[in-house]
């Protein structure tokens, strides 16, 4: 499996980790895969049919440069999410109901954190997870999610979706980088990768491509200049 | 500049004693500038469990073979591979490995295809190093990359293709597999059924000299007298013969190629690396079963 860098300068990629370092310790990335026509899921309703080539290895590189992986509860349920090997997992839930997850029993302390409104903290059904209840009148704001993670000592964050959480963080201007893999397919069920996202511009900071046609882009949001 | 050969009497009788080193010699020369020690094993993880201090790893399967076609890497890839391991054109390379140096011999043969002048085997490989009290380290090697010239392989002298073997029939052919593989009782070596072929047997007129007869129990090569008895007396090889050796995928026959070329001094020995995995599945090539060599089919 060969990875090649296309931008900023062409060349082979031997050590993927070196191409995914974070510019500063506090850095929140969204890491997603979508089809060419912008769908975040394939025929089976998950991203499993989209992922291929070096995608898992790039994902690994992103995880290794992060202090925590952040996902939304529906990803945990729908994707049959497996524990990341190298970093802890943090799950955001509004209801506390994590039925349908695939996290194995016998969880060691510090591997899984659940972020939820304080009002539902008692009803979180993931044995072994550390539950962080956050004072909130409605669903957790992007700011409160990030603050909670920083409070736990997690400064470099890799958010792996789902689309709702990712869009939420973008709307709240919490995102420093969007890592988007593009799988060379179209025509699956239409499920926008970032539904209802605000209008944002990005600058391309890096583009890699592997030998089965998956491309890996690093996009940095262009923030309006503040005087 | 080449490093002095191992001049112990054990190797003196061989045609090219400078192609072998013993464990004492290696222990004395570890760390010499101009020397690079290479480990090539059948088990891809063995190096990581412990290797001779300073040794680099070259895996025949994953480093020397083209990933798409059944062939070796080209000159540019070889230069990049070995240069990156600190091997220059003039470097003395000593190769060792597990399984009686099968894969070390195969790697040495590939180095020879690229014309690397000074490449030697550690007699007895890993087993002998351990038996002689040699130590291993798990510290990864940190070679300084050097330039290695891009040299295109010359396959004509020591490599035989299937068509070469067809044209060669009638000249000496050595099958180094087990007697059961030779006779056709089995298509594969007892421990290697994944390397099977569609048909069993051997190439007509081949002499069966199992590779293992060339080594002692500790994996070191037998003395010259015993090798002569084996290859000249029993298998009938004569001075000046043009010989082709084969096995299943060429690793055991590389070992025999080494014996015939560097220990016995035959000057025209080729390794048919396609070996039985190719011949045994090729369409319309002659095959003989049973323990006799069999006759070359008339043209």
């Amino acid at each position, binding site marked *: *499996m060969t990875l090649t860098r296309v931008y900023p300068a062409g060349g082979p990629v031997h*050590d*993927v*980790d070196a191409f995914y370092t974070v510019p500063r310790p506090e850095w929140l990335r969204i890491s997603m895969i979508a089809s060419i026509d912008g769908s975040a899921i394939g025929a*089976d309703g*998950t991203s*499993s049919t989209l*992922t291929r080539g070096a995608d*898992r*290895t790039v*994902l*690994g*590189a992103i*995880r290794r440069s992060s202090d925590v992986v952040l996902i939304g509860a529906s990803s945990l349920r729908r994707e*049959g999410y*497996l*524990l*990341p*090997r*190298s970093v802890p997992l943090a799950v955001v839930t509004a209801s506390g109901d994590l039925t349908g997850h*695939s996290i*194995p029993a016998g969880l060691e302390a510090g591997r899984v954190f659940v972020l939820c409104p304080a009002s539902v903290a008692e009803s979180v059904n993931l044995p072994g997870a550390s539950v962080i209840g956050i004072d909130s009148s409605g669903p957790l704001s992007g700011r409160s999610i990030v603050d909670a993670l920083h409070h736990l000592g997690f400064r470099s964050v890799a958010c792996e979706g789902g689309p709702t959480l990712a869009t939420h963080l973008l709307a709240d201007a919490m995102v420093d980088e969007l890592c988007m893999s593009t799988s060379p397919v179209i025509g699956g069920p239409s499920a926008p990768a970032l539904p209802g996202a605000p209008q944002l511009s990005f600058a391309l900071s890096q583009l890699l491509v592997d030998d089965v046609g998956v491309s890996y882009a690093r996009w940095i949001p262009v923030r309006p200049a503040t005087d | 500049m080449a490093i002095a050969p191992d001049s112990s009497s054990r190797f003196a009788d061989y045609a090219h004693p400078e192609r072998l080193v013993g464990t004492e010699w290696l222990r004395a020369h570890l760390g010499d500038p101009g020397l690079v020690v290479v480990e090539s094993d*059948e*088990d*891809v*993880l*063995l190096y*990581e*469990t412990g290797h001779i201090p300073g040794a680099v790893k070259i*895996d025949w*399967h*994953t480093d020397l*073979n083209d*990933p798409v076609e059944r062939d070796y890497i080209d000159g540019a890839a070889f230069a990049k591979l070995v240069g990156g391991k600190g091997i220059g054109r003039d470097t003395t390379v000593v190769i060792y490995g*597990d399984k009686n140096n099968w894969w070390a011999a195969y790697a040495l043969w590939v180095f020879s295809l690229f014309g690397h002048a000074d490449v030697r085997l550690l007699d007895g490989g890993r087993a002998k190093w351990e038996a002689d009290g040699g130590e291993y380290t798990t510290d990864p090697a940190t070679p300084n990359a050097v330039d290695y010239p891009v040299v295109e392989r010359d396959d004509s002298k020591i490599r035989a293709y299937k068509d070469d073997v067809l044209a060669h029939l009638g000249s000496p052919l050595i099958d180094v597999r087990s007697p059961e593989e030779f006779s056709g009782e089995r298509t594969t070596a*007892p*421990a*290697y*059924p*994944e*390397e099977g072929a569609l048909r069993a047997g051997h190439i007509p007129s081949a002499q069966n000299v199992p590779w293992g007869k060339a080594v002692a129990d500790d994996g070191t090569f037998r003395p010259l007298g015993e090798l002569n008895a084996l290859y000249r007396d029993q298998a009938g090889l004569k001075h000046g013969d043009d010989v082709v050796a084969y096995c299943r995928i060429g690793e055991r026959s590389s070992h025999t190629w080494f014996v015939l070329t560097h220990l016995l001094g035959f000057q025209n020995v080729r390794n048919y690396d396609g070996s039985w995995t190719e011949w045994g599945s090729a369409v319309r090539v002659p095959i003989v079963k049973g323990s006799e060599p069999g006759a070359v089919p008339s043209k």
Partner: protein
Amino acid sequence: MTDLPESLAQIREDFLELEQRDRLLLLLEFANELPELPERYSAHPDLLERVIECQSPVFIFVEVWDDSTVHVFATAPKEAPTTRGFASIIAQGLEGLTVGQVLGVPDDFPNTIGLTEAVSPLRIRGMTGLLARVKRQVREKLAA
């Protein structure tokens, strides 16, 4: 990925996330984790079945308990770390799965965990052979 039992899916994820050279190190970790045989087998080596697809001697024994769960025991020599690694992946990945789950594991699972490049397609066949023999032993025990 969704129809693979979670234990095997996790192993696959763990390998795929790593770069090539680190995958070999993970395989070595698996090799070092291969548990010793329980006494009921270490004292009776005749009970174990040799897996001839592997390049080094590997012996396996499969148990199907009353609750239809499968348990695999294997042993391979210390100088065969790759073979030990394969055996360890199979033993850990299948541990406690139901008979149905084990028989449903795709035969080509060993080719999908990102090791073919690092280990070579030829060597991977050793793990494929291991998996096939485990399934065969499970079927034999069901038929008995």
